[in-house]
């Protein structure tokens, strides 16, 4: 009989807990905040407004589509990545009693951070639809590839979430470092402007950023009516390998968590 690798089998047997932890965080946000899911779209909308002013009034950049649609679509998928990691980085250290007193697969913490953000992404996608309708941007057949793009985004984000949550547990500097890295990373990715325009050595370095093919693939299938290309396929494959590696590393280190908290 085919047997799942141990971490996967364990995760499967604790699937109820993953769902519970995710819904716990969603329910808590609803109970504790007035805006609830509004926060999922508020930040990207504000950022879209800011960058629309900069890139349409101060200077202009040709993105082939109404700039707010370009920026908002980029920010929506970027925000999924960034907010997943923002939740994940503290997920182990902010649950000390669970980590040190009870056994269950600790992957649940970073994974539920990703799932919470995935729900936010779903809400943000509805708003993106409204923004596209407002600017008369239609969708095409390419939208059927959206689940594939989101799957790749989830794999890459989950892998990064495992790494940052684990790293922050061992070295508390990570959460500060994380804020800097994520801020720089956004401008190194085609979120609010196409980084492909950057030339020279910097441009060559930026071309290695795995988030750019992801954000562009997302834009392609949603607003450009194009199917994702080879760059995306490479990125998706790399994400899968990254996830497998990060998961194995996390699983191996799991038993040291209780001693380091």
């Amino acid at each position, binding site marked *: 009989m085919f047997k799942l690798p141990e971490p996967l089998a364990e995760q499967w047997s604790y699937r109820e807990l993953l769902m519970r932890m995710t819904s716990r965080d969603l329910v808590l946000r609803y109970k504790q905040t007035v805006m609830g899911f509004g926060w999922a779209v508020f930040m990207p909308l504000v950022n879209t407004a800011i960058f629309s002013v900069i890139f349409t009034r101060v200077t202009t950049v040709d993105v082939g589509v109404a700039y707010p649609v370009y920026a908002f679509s980029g920010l929506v998928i970027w925000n999924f990545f960034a907010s997943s990691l923002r939740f994940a980085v503290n997920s182990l250290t902010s649950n000390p009693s*669970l980590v040190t007193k009870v056994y269950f697969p600790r992957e649940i913490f970073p994974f539920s951070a990703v799932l919470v953000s995935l729900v936010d992404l779903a809400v943000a996608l509805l708003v993106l639809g409204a923004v596209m309708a407002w600017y008369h941007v239609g969708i095409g057949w390419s939208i059927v590839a959206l689940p594939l793009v989101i799957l790749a985004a989830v794999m890459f984000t989950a892998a990064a979430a495992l790494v940052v949550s684990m790293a922050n547990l061992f070295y508390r500097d990570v959460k500060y470092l994380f804020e800097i890295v994520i801020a720089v990373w956004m401008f190194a990715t085609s979120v609010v402007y196409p980084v492909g325009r950057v030339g020279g050595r910097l441009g060559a370095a930026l071309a290695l950023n795995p988030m750019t093919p992801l954000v562009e693939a997302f834009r392609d299938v949603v607003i450009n009516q194009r199917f994702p290309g080879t760059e995306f396929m490479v990125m998706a494959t790399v994400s899968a390998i990254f996830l497998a590696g990060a998961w194995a590393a996390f699983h191996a280190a799991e*038993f040291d968590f209780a*001693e380091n908290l």
Partner: protein
Amino acid sequence: MGHISLRGVWKKYYRGERHDSLRDLVPALAARALGRQKRDALGKQEFWALRDISLDVKPGEAVGIIGPNGAGKSTLLKLLTRILRPTRGEIEIQGRVGALIEVAAGFHPDLTGRENVYLQGAVMGMTRAEISRKFDAIVDFAGVPEFIDTPVKRYSSGMNARLGFAVAAHMDPDVLLIDEVLSVGDVGFQEKCVARMREMIARGVPLAFVSHNLTAVVDLCTRAILIDHGVVRAEGNPAEVVSEFRRGRRADNAPTGDGPIQITDVRLLQADGEVSPLFQTGKAMTIQVHYQARQPVERPHVAIDIHTADGTYCAGINTRMDNCSLGTLEGSGHVDLVTPRLSLLPGCYSISAGILDPQGLRPLDLHARAYPFTVVSTRRDFGFVYLEHEWRHTATDPAVAAARDAADEECAV
């Protein structure tokens, strides 16, 4: 049915803080790269929390794990719950593990009792269907049906613990691990918990029970092990292991014997003057502190403390606070503390005796918790202290009062 089996388990710990900041990473990596850290070797900052522990718990067995604080009991339990991994050796646990440890760890204060039951159930590995099926029984067991849709931040800590325990008690484990849960909630709830534990033992669920409550260990367990400084010092019949533990404590606290005066013995005497470790509630008890003075000691004070076996401080008495002067102690003799009616309820206690300087600050000699004794009684009051009491009833309704006047109710105890 599951079982627990440990084969030569060792666990290494780090003293003090480990590198928590990036600036410590570089030296740590360098040390690792140079291969100085071997798995079995002890570094400067390391010590063995457990050494070569082997233990089998088979179906139908309940094993009590006792030992002084810091002996390694909690580490052992954490290894069993898979929170920690042994440095060496093997641990095999078959079946679903139910751990009555931190039973409310998964609770979130802002969620309702109902939401928390589902969350905690999932933390313990139960499925939604299973929790739904047992939900009413859980709420009933915890005794909080009217508050189940209230956020648990409005619960008292007792209600919180009860609800957590109720979830844990309903998970039908194949192996049960317990850490000191008998201190949860009020007496009524504790009895329910003990009944539940007995029920599981009777069903044949192997049980490992870590406790300071020596009475409960003797009462519930089929076997006990005594751990001290990370090694098993005794194993076998719970009553024998418990008394071994008590003897060991006394030896640990042997007087240093370099002061001007020494406590040579503390004898506990029953009403008839017989030395015995067994006393009755309401009967006389005499505590004799025998001393040997190397040189005359002027106006020292004698202090007696009584603790329960699990460490609750019950009474502290000393001659200084009682304004009782002993004069100068020379040669040998004994100071007696007589309590005509012992007001402790049944349980296991231990006595500490000390001789202090005239200011009552510095101990000249001290035997801490070195003298155990047991109190028995037919009384069934709860708690530690027996309050002399009587009950009276007064009816204020004139008609009823007149009728009752003839047979005035009073029951003195």
